């Protein structure tokens, strides 16, 4: 009994101890996201607290520190771009995920479908994302089709057609990358696992669903984090099909006041905050779903 206690104690860090650095990080995160949320609410409801894209506090209060005053003045305009950056990233990851599961399943277990999945994945990974967005935006008549749909760009928070096309593009693109991360994860699950599932009478599909995938998805979290981090930054390519996301906003404001360095530095800080949030959440997820011995060297 004592032996098994010591074994399990070492395998999961319950993390109850107080870590001042972590607390500071959580505080900074809460302030950043709280502020963002207020900005978005303010701008969506036509200036709930202050006029759209106007700071809550006057930049003149911060004149003693010009860089801060600059940030206070232009951060609100960038915040609306951050919304689209976050939206594109989350939609790309979330909608790409189920497609990736099907693609990865086909890659590992399929016969004819293996080649279809491989073709899709290599086509998407082998061509530039920007080119894919251009084809979707200019090449397929998709723009005019979406523009005709009721409500697009005119009703409330329903975004304009370029955003829809970017969401489609990122979904298609992210599905291919996620499929490859997942395929690697599926292949690192011991084949004996599926065999044991089959041996108690589970069908191939149920064996994959209840035995292989729950393990593979855990193995895939680090790769998935990587994809999320890339996507946050790649979403800036949507700027080139006119989506007013973070990069686009910074660039268009800078073209008016020529403060390129300052604006792109500020935008860079926003990207950094998004990426840190993403990696932090993903590592929490990883801890949350960790199972003793699974995914560690001894368990594999």
């Amino acid at each position, binding site marked *: 009994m004592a032996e098994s206690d010591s074994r399990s104690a070492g395998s999961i860090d319950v993390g109850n101890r107080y870590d001042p650095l972590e607390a500071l990080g959580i505080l900074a995160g809460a302030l950043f996201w709280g502020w963002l949320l207020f900005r978005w609410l303010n701008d969506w409801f036509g200036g709930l607290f202050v006029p759209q894209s106007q700071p809550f506090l006057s930049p003149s209060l911060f004149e003693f520190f010009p860089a801060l005053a600059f940030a206070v003045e232009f951060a609100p305009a960038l915040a609306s771009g951050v919304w689209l950056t976050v939206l594109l990233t989350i939609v790309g990851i979330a909608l790409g995920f189920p497609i990736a599961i099907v693609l990865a399943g086909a890659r590992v277990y399929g016969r004819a479908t293996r080649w279809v999945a491989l073709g899709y994945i290599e086509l998407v990974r082998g061509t530039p994302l920007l080119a894919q967005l251009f084809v979707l935006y200019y090449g397929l008549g998709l723009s005019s089709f979406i523009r005709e749909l009721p409500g697009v760009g005119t009703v409330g928070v329903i975004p304009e057609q370029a955003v829809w096309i970017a969401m489609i593009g990122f979904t298609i693109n992210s599905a291919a990358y996620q499929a490859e991360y997942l395929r690697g994860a599926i292949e690192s699950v011991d084949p004996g696992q599926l065999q044991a599932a089959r041996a108690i009478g589970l069908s191939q599909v149920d064996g994959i669903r209840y*035995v292989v995938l729950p393990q593979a998805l855990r193995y895939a979290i680090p790769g998935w984090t990587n994809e999320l981090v890339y996507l946050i930054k790649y979403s800036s390519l949507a700027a080139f099909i006119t989506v007013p996301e973070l990069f686009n906003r910074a660039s268009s404001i800078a073209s008016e006041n020529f403060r390129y360095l300052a604006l792109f530095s500020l935008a860079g800080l926003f990207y950094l905050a998004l990426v840190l949030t993403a990696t932090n959440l993903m590592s929490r997820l990883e801890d949350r779903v960790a199972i003793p011995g699974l995914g560690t060297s001894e368990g594999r």
Partner: protein
Amino acid sequence: MSDPLLSVRDLRKSFGEEEVLRGIDFEMDRQDVQVLMGPSGSGKSTLLRCVNRLSEPDDGTITVDGEDTAAMDDDDLRREVGMVFQTFNLFAHLTARKNVSLGLRRVRGFAKSEAEDRAGEELERVGLADQADSYPAELSGGQQQRVGIARALAMDPKLLLFDEPTSALDPELIGEVLAVMRELADGGMTMLVVTHEMGFAREAATDLLFLDEGRILERGPPTQLFESPEHERTATFLRRLTDLEAGQHG
């Protein structure tokens, strides 16, 4: 006399050029415990895997309880023929209890609470009631293998296949697994066991089959094969095992 529970007729299996099984014939009655022995590469594991069709035979007929397994749905067959693996193959993301209850829920259609209760009973049967909520990595090899046995038992199989169930275990953990297997044998479970555990073969086996180069070279009650084997190869092999065991335990 009723029909045999398992009947294997002229079973053949090749992997590429290599013919691993070259015409295997044998039968098992209910409550038989047959032990398969033979040098590595003689086809023991392949034979087991053909019985539950984890490997597809090239030729020959296998019937379980009178039914031709080639005509059966694989999943139905595997409900009737359980398997215990050399490397345990416990579902690594599930607790011992969930390892046992998964098949009950997804294959036999038990409700969740019903399945978990039944899983608890099976774990108790292999002496692991207190480890029901441990994950495989938290269990010793011997405990893992006992969960593996409980998982197979939960499906109420008519026949249990054991593929070298103790050969991946540290010597001091072998005993607990063999004890569970002996109890099953005493309880009337029909078992086809690939093992080189001489003690188990002597005490629990109704018959011993000696496999060599894809054929059953010799068969009979264990005392007969141990004491007066017909073939020189059988004699040499069993003598080596006996010497090895004496060396280990002496």
